[in-house]
C-alpha cells in the first residue's frame, strides 16, 4: 500500500471512449510535487477529457488515475479535497457576487471562516475591487481569474489549469505566470494545458505532447526542445542574399556553415535562433521527426 513516492497526480494507461470514438488512447504520465507540467496538444487531442477524468466529471473506460496515491474511481470524495480545477469553459453563475461565490466554494470544502484566504486571493488576482460584482458584470478575463481564485480557496496541493490564459490580455497573462511561479514555490503541483507554446516553454518544467489521445513525447521541456527542435540560422551573404538554414541544436555553427558551403568572408550578417518548443511541437505533430533535422530554405 505504501509507495516510496506518491505523486500529486499519476495517470496510468488511461483510456476513454465516447461510444466507439477513442478520445484518450493509453495515456501515462505523472505530475510531481512543485513542478508545472504542461499537457500540450492540438484541439481535440484529449487534454480536457483527461482532466475531466481526474476531476471525476467523466469516468475512465480503462486505466487508472491517482491523486496523492488515492484512486480517483475508488475514493472520489477524498480526491476532491486534494485538487483545485479551473475548467476550460467559462462559468457564468448569475445570482451571486464574486465574494459570495468564494465563500460558498470555501464552505463546500468545509471551511466556514475563510475570509483571510479569500482576501489574499482577491488581492493576488486583482479582483478585490470587483468583489461585490456579480459574475455577469465581470469581463472575460476577470471571470477567468475568479475561476482560478475558486480553485484555490482550499489551498489544494494539486492545481489543474485547463487553458487558464485563453482570452486573457498580455499584462494579465504575465501576472498569471508570476502567480503560477509563486504556487510552484509553495510546492504546489500544477497541470497546465495551453495553446501558447511560448507560455509552456516559459512555465513548464516538463511537458507531455498529446495527439489524438496518445502521448507523442514527454520529458523536461528543455530536453524535448533539444531532441525535436532545430535551430534556425539566418544568413545574409553578399553573393546570394538571405538564406535560412535549419540544423540540429547541438551542431556547431562552423560545421553548419561548412556544410552549407558558405564562406565566412562572404557573410554580411548572421542570426541564430535557438530551438523553440513551437518547432518541436510542430515537427512532432506533423510526423517529420524521423526526417533529418537539417535543411535549408532560401
Amino acid at each position, binding site marked *: 500500500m505504501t509507495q516510496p513516492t506518491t505523486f500529486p497526480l499519476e495517470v496510468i494507461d488511461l483510456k476513454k471512449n465516447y461510444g466507439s470514438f477513442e478520445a484518450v488512447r493509453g495515456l501515462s504520465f505523472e505530475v510531481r510535487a512543485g513542478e508545472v507540467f504542461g499537457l500540450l496538444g492540438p484541439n481535440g487531442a484529449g487534454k480536457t477529457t483527461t482532466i475531466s477524468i481526474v476531476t471525476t466529471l467523466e469516468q475512465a473506460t480503462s486505466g487508472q488515475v491517482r491523486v496523492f496515491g488515492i484512486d480517483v474511481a475508488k475514493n472520489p470524495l477524498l480526491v476532491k479535497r486534494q485538487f483545485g480545477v479551473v475548467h476550460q469553459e467559462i462559468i457564468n453563475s448569475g445570482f451571486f457576487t464574486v465574494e459570495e461565490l468564494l465563500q460558498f466554494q470555501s464552505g463546500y470544502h468545509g471551511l*466556514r471562516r475563510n475570509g483571510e484566504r479569500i482576501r489574499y486571493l482577491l488581492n493576488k488576482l486583482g479582483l478585490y475591487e470587483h468583489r461585490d460584482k456579480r459574475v455577469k458584470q465581470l469581463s472575460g478575463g476577470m471571470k477567468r481569474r475568479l475561476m482560478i481564485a475558486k480553485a484555490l480557496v482550499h489551498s489544494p496541493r494539486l492545481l489543474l489549469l485547463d487553458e487558464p490564459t485563453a482570452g486573457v490580455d498580455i499584462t494579465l497573462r504575465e501576472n498569471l505566470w508570476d502567480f503560477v511561479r509563486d504556487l510552484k514555490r509553495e510546492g504546489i503541483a500544477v497541470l497546465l494545458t495551453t495553446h501558447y507554446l511560448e507560455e509552456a516553454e516559459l512555465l513548464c518544467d516538463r511537458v507531455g505532447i498529446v495527439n489524438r489521445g496518445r502521448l507523442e513525447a514527454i520529458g523536461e521541456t528543455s530536453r524535448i526542445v533539444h531532441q525535436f527542435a532545430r535551430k534556425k540560422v539566418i544568413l545574409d551573404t553578399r553573393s546570394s542574399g538571405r538564406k535560412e538554414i535549419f540544423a540540429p541544436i547541438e551542431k556547431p555553427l562552423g560545421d553548419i556553415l561548412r556544410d552549407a558551403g558558405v564562406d565566412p568572408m562572404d557573410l554580411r550578417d548572421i542570426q541564430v535562433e535557438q530551438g523553440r518548443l513551437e518547432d518541436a511541437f510542430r515537427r512532432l505533430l506533423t510526423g517529420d521527426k524521423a526526417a533529418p533535422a537539417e535543411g535549408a530554405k532560401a
Partner: protein
Amino acid sequence: MMVAFLTLLERECRRFMKVIVQTVVTPFVSSFLYLLVFGVSLGAAVELKNGVPYLSFLVPGLMMMALINNSFQNSSSSIVSSKFSGDIEDLAVVPLTDNQIIWALGLGALLRGVLVALVTLAVGEVFHDQQLGVWLPVAHPLYLLYFTLVGGLLFAFLGISVAFWSKGFEHLSAFSSFVLLPLTYLGGVFISVESLSPFWQQVSRLNPLLYLINGFRYGMLGVSDVEITQSLLVSFLGLLVFYVMARISLSRGSFQRW
C-alpha cells in the same frame, strides 16, 4: 462534512431570497385571484357533502398546491440554471456526496414552498375572516406538519430528478405543464373527488397528489376524501420512491453543462 452541506443549503436559500419580492408577491397575487374567483364568487354556489364551506375547503388545497409547485420549481430551476451557466460542474468537483446535494436542495426547496404556502394562508385567512366571520382553524397540527414536510420534500426530489434528466429548459416546462399541472388540478385542489362519477373517482385514486392534498386538508379541517392512514402511508411511500429516484438520477444523470 456538515459545513459543506450547510453551505449548499445556505446557497439554496440565498438564491430564492435574492428574488424574495417575486417569491412572495407572485403567490400573493395568484392566491388572491383564486380565492376571489373560485372561493368567493363560485364558492357561493357550491354545496359540499360534509357541510364544509367551500372557502374553507379551498384554502388548504391552494396552500398545498403552492407548496408543491414551489418546491418543485426551486430545486429543478436551481439545477437547470446551474446546467445553463456551467456551475453544475463545480458542484460535481467539490467534496459533496450525492446525499448531501439531494438533502440540501430538498430542504432549500421545502423552505421556499413553506414560505409561499404561508403567504397563501395569510391571504386565505383574510378572505375567510371577511366572508365567514371566523379564522380558519387548524384541526390537527401534527398531521399538517407531516404533510407539509412530506409534500414539499417529495416534490423537491422530483424536481431534482426531472432537472437532472432534462436536456433543456423546454423539457422542464413540458413536464410542468403536461404532468404536474394536470395532476394538481385533478388531485382535488378545487373539487372534492366525491363529487366525481364513480369511474373518475377510481382514476383519481391513482393520482399520488390526491393523498397529499387530502392529508393536508385533513390536518387543517379534520375532513378528507381519503382515509387518513391511507394518505399517511401513500405519501410516505411516495417520498421514498422519489428520494431513490433522485439518488439514481444524480449518480447516472449528467453533470455536464448544456
